[in-house]
């Protein structure tokens, strides 16, 4: 990446050699001037807050008050017992993220395979399938909250066909709330996977399929031995991006269950929010957020390397 990043122009105007030019590069003044706003915004509102959060996690600090240094006490509270809210939230985060990612992979792949066929009005169909991606997460969550409501179509169908005597209260029962939440996350998140898979499928050479066909490979084997291996890099990057976004996104949970029933759907980001903002304990909330950092750090470092290499 290093050498292809900025190919220098041959006609560099006014090439006069002086010390800052040699150290900082021939066009450092204009270059720095142009990147300065980006660097300032990113530093002040992304990098500084990140390090501030680290410091904050070692303090006891309430909203509107100054903090006192408490060392590792915030972290000690989190790990105090195997049944602490943090442990429970960690498990919920893993279950929700794992369930959602696996479902998005399977459904996204099936959707991409279908949309890659020779269908009438294929572009219109693609446009429709990608709609959930454009909709705000809050809207998706409210629409689905209504879908699962006692006045919604799911309970309506159950009552109509006499399947059950009573309504199903999806968000009052932990065993139903978690799967229902995953359904909503999958509905909103699958189009991103489908889009990437479709793009990846276009890049697989058609000759491979023709050769496999001559060798007598059936449709399923061609998928297994050509499509899947061909998509492997796309699958990897999509899965990593989606894992970051799914695990970090508290919006659908906030709207659908608000973490309930009895904290069954409280993930780590939501626990961090509850602790810091409604609970006013900024330090303890920051500590919860910080426990997610090692996990994200591994994913982000890996992705950064891959995205720059593909560049």
């Amino acid at each position, binding site marked *: 990446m290093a050498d*292809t990043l*900025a190919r*220098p*122009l*041959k006609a560099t*105007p006014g090439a006069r050699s002086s010390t800052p030019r040699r150290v900082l*590069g021939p066009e*450092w003044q204009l*270059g*720095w*001037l142009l990147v300065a*706003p*980006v660097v300032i*915004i*990113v530093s*002040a*509102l*992304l990098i*500084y*807050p990140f390090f*501030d*959060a680290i410091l*904050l996690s070692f303090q006891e600090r309430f909203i509107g008050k100054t903090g006192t240094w408490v060392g590792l006490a915030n972290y000690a509270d989190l790990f105090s017992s195997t049944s602490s809210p943090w442990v429970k939230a960690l498990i919920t985060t893993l279950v929700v993220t794992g369930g959602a990612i696996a479902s998005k992979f399977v459904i996204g792949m099936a959707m991409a395979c*279908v949309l890659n066929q*020779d269908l009438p009005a294929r572009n219109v169909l693609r446009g*429709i399938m990608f709609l959930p991606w*454009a*909709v*705000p*997460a*809050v*809207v*998706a969550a*409210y*629409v*689905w909250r*209504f879908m699962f*409501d006692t*006045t919604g*179509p799911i309970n309506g169908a159950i*009552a109509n066909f006499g399947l059950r005597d009573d309504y199903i209260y999806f968000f009052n029962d932990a065993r139903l709330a978690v799967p229902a939440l995953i359904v909503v996350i999958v*509905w909103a998140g699958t189009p*991103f996977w489908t*889009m990437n898979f479709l793009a*990846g499928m*276009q890049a697989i050479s058609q000759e491979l*399929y023709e050769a496999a*066909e001559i060798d007598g490979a059936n449709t399923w084997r061609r998928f297994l031995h050509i499509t899947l291996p061909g998509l492997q*890099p796309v699958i990897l*990057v999509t899965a990593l991006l989606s894992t970051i976004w799914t695990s*970090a996104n508290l919006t659908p949970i906030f709207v659908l269950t608000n973490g309930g029933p009895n904290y069954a759907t409280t993930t780590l980001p939501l626990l961090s*929010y509850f602790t*810091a*903002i409604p609970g006013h304990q*900024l330090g303890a909330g920051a500590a919860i*957020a910080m426990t*997610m950092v090692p996990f*994200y750090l591994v994913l*982000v470092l890996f992705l950064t390397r891959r995205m*720059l290499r593909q560049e």
Partner: protein
Amino acid sequence: MAVAAQAAPRARGRSKRSTRAGRRAIGRGWVIATWVALAVFVLWTVIPFIWMILASVKTNREIYDDFTLLPKTLYFGHYVSLLGGKFGIWMRNSAEVSIAATALSITLGACGAYAITRLRFAGRRVIALGLVFTYLVPQSLLFIPLFQVVAGLGLSDTVGALILVYPTITLPFCTWLLMSYFKSIPLELEEAALIDGCNRLGVLVRIVLPLSTPALVVVCLFSFTQAWNEFLYALVITNSLATRTVTVGLTQMLGEDVFYWGQMMAGALITALPPVLMYTLAQRLVIKGLIVGGVKG
């Protein structure tokens, strides 16, 4: 995106061939399976939207007592009462914040991307790396310290704070996407202009930006949609009715016990409309841009 544009004619030829191969190779069972799956996927995608649209024009009686599938008449009472409340203010806040954040991201992003791709100066590699890195850092790690930063600047509970904060979501991606597009513009054009006496900024404004129109459209759409759809920062930073954006405003509409589903679905529909319309109008560009930005290759 440049890659996609260059590959377009080839891809078209390929898809024609794949069609033929597909027809020859796929058995009857698979054809049926494809159509069944297609029907399931379309229903799965569309039913929530249809349910939302229908409910927004049903009367409360139809929603809560009769459970009718289709409304007998189109009832616009929910929309009327919605616009009589705070909803209009929230929409205006969202529009202001999204447009301002978009303008900021595209201007600063274009300048930064041009400098990183075309100018030689120390530090640009680190900056490029940092941009990808920061693009991937999730907001739930940052909202607590950002809440403090905003309070420290005396901007708590203002729309201005959101205009300041939203570029952190949009700017790294915008810069990144424009960088990959600028790289595809032939250097010869810029060299010719420089020899003719145009300066660097002139090259950027007169040559690079006009040639990058598709990428600029994508960047605009992305920034606007991201800012419009954003929820967490708006929830944390604003807390009075007059400064809410529409996504947070929606969550304030539910009553204590009774659900106002009709009004809620009307509000959800209006909220979803700007990003959905934009996306529909520029669908192809957006998908290409997304693929280049997120997963390349």
